[in-house]
């Protein structure tokens, strides 16, 4: 009885469900109350594309990213199994494809046949790696784990909270979150036209693992004597890897479905036997590959000849505390959104063009939505690539043995909008909430003559730039809250040598 259900397909399904649930669970516990030192960035850390691309941009394999060796080594031995067994996006795409499936075997053969467009992913990979070699990390746009992480954190989880509640105290808001959601839903919908569209056509990680699997020892093998060319192996094929002819090893995601689809038991997984069919190596055109690399050579200087936060300081590119200097930041940030998930005040937001095109969806602080909690270092602890280096509270607030606090920017008063300055109205909420000790915001008491009535005393806020850490709580709590009368800009940030205004801070 049990043996009837213990098929390879069911075993793989169990793994798929397990890893997908693990993925959701790890996002779910990425918050102040549940983190407790779990390896919450696990999926990002085992992703070899992230570790290789960040290695190319900065010649280091950062901490947890060394875990990706598990996937590299196992892929070299077992083939591209990651895509069908572990990858949350691959698993999701497979489920969605099944949902959109017409459920006629004749269509299955059609949708699971190889198409030449499936080569595109190798060219995408080549382009991204060439850009990485020059020092521009754009892998985060298309790396499947970053992609699915970002989509869940910035669109799916907030949407689930909207209907059910309980995930957050306040409905999280994300700047341009709908854009990320639309792209994600479009990728899911693309499965309607090409099964596993993302995995077969776009995925640069799939391409990378495909390249690795080209040397794998254990493979799907077809016995040419037993095979009757019925093509039933195509019906449930995940990779569109032609198991019925000469298997395209780099496309095969080792889903094992063909083994159980075969009525002749002609397919097995393992070493080659005497009657095993030949296999097709990596199907890419060398000329296209070189053209792609050349495209990278041309694209890179174009990307660097623009105004962005690394060529000129951008006042809105306020990075989370602990971020490294902008040039290096862009070499490390994979836009995964982990910092945006963990931030208790929702201040960390995906940038659109605030930091330039290269900084798309990298974290910036929008103090209108939240503010940087003074005693909080969560974002620095979850960053898987070290774009934000881990801080301790002592280091962040500048307690002993550290001398200076970590500044993310400086606040400036807009005296034309500030109630005490512009309209002689009592306020100084900014002074109340200022978290430094002594407070960076202080006030002068002046005697004012109101339009009517007697003279009275009024407190007008002032800012001490030496004490201000740029946390933005003053901007966030300012009663003039459509365009606050005190606003933080990035100047004075600790991480930058150049984005400074005061000679001797």
């Amino acid at each position, binding site marked *: 009885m049990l043996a009837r259900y213990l098929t390879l397909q069911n075993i793989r399904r169990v793994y798929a469900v397990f890893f997908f649930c693990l993925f959701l669970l790890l996002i779910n516990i990425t918050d102040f109350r549940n983190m407790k030192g779990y390896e919450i960035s696990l999926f990002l850390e085992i992703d070899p594309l992230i570790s290789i691309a960040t290695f190319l941009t900065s010649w280091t394999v950062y901490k947890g990213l060394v875990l990706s060796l598990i996937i590299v080594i196992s892929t070299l031995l077992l083939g591209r199994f990651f895509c069908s067994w572990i990858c949350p996006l691959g698993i999701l795409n497979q489920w969605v494809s099944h949902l959109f499936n017409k459920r006629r075997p004749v269509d299955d053969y059609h949708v699971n046949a190889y198409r030449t467009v499936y080569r595109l992913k190798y060219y995408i990979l080549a382009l991204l790696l060439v850009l990485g070699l020059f020092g521009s990390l754009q892998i985060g746009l298309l790396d499947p784990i970053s992609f699915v992480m970002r989509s869940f954190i910035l669109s799916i989880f907030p949407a689930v909270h909207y209907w059910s509640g309980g995930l957050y*105290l306040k409905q999280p808001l994300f700047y341009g979150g709908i854009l990320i959601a639309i792209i994600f839903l479009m990728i899911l919908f693309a499965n309607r036209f090409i099964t596993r569209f993302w995995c077969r056509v776009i995925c640069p990680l799939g391409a990378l693992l495909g390249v690795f699997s080209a040397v794998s020892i254990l493979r799907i093998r077809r016995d040419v004597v037993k095979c009757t060319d019925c093509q039933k192996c195509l019906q449930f094929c995940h990779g569109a890897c032609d198991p019925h002819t000469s298997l395209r090893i780099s496309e095969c995601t080792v889903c094992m479905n063909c083994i159980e689809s075969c009525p002749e038991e002609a397919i097995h997984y393992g070493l080659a036997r005497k009657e095993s069919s030949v296999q097709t190596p990596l199907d890419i055109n060398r000329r296209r590959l070189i053209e792609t690399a050349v495209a990278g050579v041309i694209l890179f200087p174009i990307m660097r000849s623009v105004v962005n936060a690394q060529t000129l300081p951008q006042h809105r590119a306020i990075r989370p505390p602990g971020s490294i200097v902008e040039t290096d930041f862009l070499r490390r940030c994979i836009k995964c959104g982990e910092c945006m998930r963990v931030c208790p005040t929702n201040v960390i937001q995906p940038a659109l063009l605030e930091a330039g095109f290269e900084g798309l969806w990298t974290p910036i602080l929008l103090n209108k939505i939240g503010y940087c*909690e003074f005693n909080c270092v969560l974002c620095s602890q979850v960053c898987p690539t070290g774009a934000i280096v881990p801080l301790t509270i002592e280091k962040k607030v500048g307690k002993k043995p550290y001398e200076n606090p970590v500044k993310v920017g400086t606040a400036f008063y807009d005296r034309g909008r500030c*109630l005490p300055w512009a309209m002689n109205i009592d306020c100084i909420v900014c002074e109340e909430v200022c*978290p430094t000790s002594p*407070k960076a915001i202080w006030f002068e008491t002046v005697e004012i003559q109101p339009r009517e009535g007697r003279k009275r005393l009024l407190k007008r806020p002032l800012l001490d730039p030496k004490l201000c850490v740029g946390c933005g709580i003053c901007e966030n709590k300012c009663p003039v809250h459509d365009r606050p009368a005190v606003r933080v800009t990035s100047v004075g940030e600790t991480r930058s040598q150049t984005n400074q205004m005061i000679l001797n801070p």
Partner: protein
Amino acid sequence: MEKEALKNVRTRYERVTLMASKHKRTEPMLNRRQFLLKTAVTCGITAGAGVWGYIFYSRDPVRRRTERILTFKNFRVDDSAEYPSMVIVRGKSVEQMTHAAVEELGGMSRFISPGNTVLIKPNVGWDRQPEQAANTNPELVAAVVKECRAAGAARVWVTDVSINDPYRSFARSGIESAVKQAGGTIRFTTEKDFVLTDLKGQILQVWPVSRFYHEADKVINLPVVKHHSLSRCTIAMKNWYGILGGRRNRLHQEINTSIADLAAAVRPTLTITDATRVLVRNGPTGGNLSDVSIENTIIAGLDEVALDAYSIQFLGLQVDDVPFIAIGQQRGLGTTDWESLNYEELSL
């Protein structure tokens, strides 16, 4: 001649109809009954559209909201000649001090009936540790939770609308774990937990207020004595800022009237002021231990105005420095002359 011509035409026409179109499915002919039925349906829908337009016709672009606006119930118990109105306890053990203070006032059973839902409102505004004295002492909160439990309260809730992240504020102030151990429940106020409430104040009318105040039978105020630049101090009366949602930072513009309005709106069953550690500078956030003065005192009583009038001495203030206390007296919330009350001083 004419007839002939007509006949020809007809024949030609018939010939044409015989050469049927490729798409030759024709509409079925209606009989009288079907025609009447179809007409009736069309007229019915038309009439329906007219009626819909008539019913929903409005001169306003949106319908007026009819949200329920609540008012606070009276949480107070009557003053009693038997017991003092204010108790000042000095000592080291907060739990013993709390117990002594409550016993002196007649025991918690004077304030709480068995089966009551008790809401405790400490000051948990900030993501700070207990030693930094920006929040109420967690030992005091835990001791009061235990007293309520012992008096037979069915549910003891602890809540505040923190200024920093609530999860962090409750955890790092030590109040969350202390309350859980003592048998109480932390009620975090989420976005959906605010209900419009009429505060009936001079400048504060309808504001979003944490719904727990409408669900509780008794309310206990547990403020902490702190410095505040604009109002000079934040103690018991100002602690009621923490019931409000919305953009409450506008209240600074008329801070003294706002504080009095809030204190008049929420009249707690009992107030126990925490002056074990007093933040004398850099309030209300603090953050530096050198700004904290250790006073080892708690003050319990029924009159918030008197409690505030007493507690300002820890900050070196006089009643005249703090206008809202006098406004409180004018509104009949209590007396600024705490020495005129029947008070007790204890040292443990």
